[in-house]
């Protein structure tokens, strides 16, 4: 199974945030690397999306879709920086 890139995860996050998260930047809790969410290496599309840091492979973001809920797990992020519309 081959991973996708984090742009696919941005589609999931679009359901959670009213801002465009394609350009959002994460800071990895494992190694401190900061980059666009779109640069994450994406695994595990069946149980949920797992976004891993391209620098250290640690898990940065997880999105789990239940039929009636969406879970966003940010254990692996120390920060998510979201651009505001129009700025």
């Amino acid at each position: 199974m081959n991973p996708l890139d984090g742009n696919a995860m941005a589609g999931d996050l679009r359901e959670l945030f009213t801002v465009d998260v394609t350009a959002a930047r994460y800071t990895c809790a494992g190694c401190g690397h900061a980059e666009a969410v779109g640069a994450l290496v994406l695994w595990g599309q069946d149980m949920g999306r797992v976004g891993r840091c391209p620098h250290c492979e640690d898990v940065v973001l997880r999105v789990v879709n239940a039929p009636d809920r969406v879970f966003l797990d940010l254990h692996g992020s120390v920060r998510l920086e979201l651009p505001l519309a129009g700025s």
Partner: protein
Amino acid sequence: MGIISRGFGGRRRESVPGLPPGQYLTHDFPVLSAGPTPRIPLDRWSFTIATETGEKKSWNWAEFTALESADVTVDIHCVTKWSKLGTTWRGVSLDTLLADVETAADYTMVHSFGGYTTNVPMEDLLDGKAWIAYKFDGEDLEPEHGGPARMLIPHLYFWKSAKWVNGLSLMNDDEPGFWEAAGYHMYGDPWLEQRYQGD
């Protein structure tokens, strides 16, 4: 902003008696991965049980495969809704591995190469309910399916049957593992459809 529902519902599934609610029968063995598949040479493989007091007991591959093993035929149920009936495995019972371990812990965390974890109550590992399997269908377990060795806990959803196992820590209190922390159920009984937190 609608909540979307993923497309499991549309297809008509084979209905089979003996399947937990919401499951369909599959004859292949789908591979689910939350990360790259670790390749573990057998001379670097070990399995370690760490008790709640910090005592440790380890087996290397030769010691592990010299333990009494069992051939088991079980049905497995994945939370993504496929079930596979009558799968055959060879492995070492957790009863055997925990026999000489001094513990009063009620909970455990299963650990894997690659960092995966999943929590399982101690009583679900005992009395012939769980194995560390190293053969599937008479063959060595492929890395894609969790080889060299994986947990096999068929009465719970299959994410509890961690691939690439390398350890078990015994805990007084329950803690979420990898998928449980991200919204999946702490216990995961397929017959009660315990898929997500709150189910």
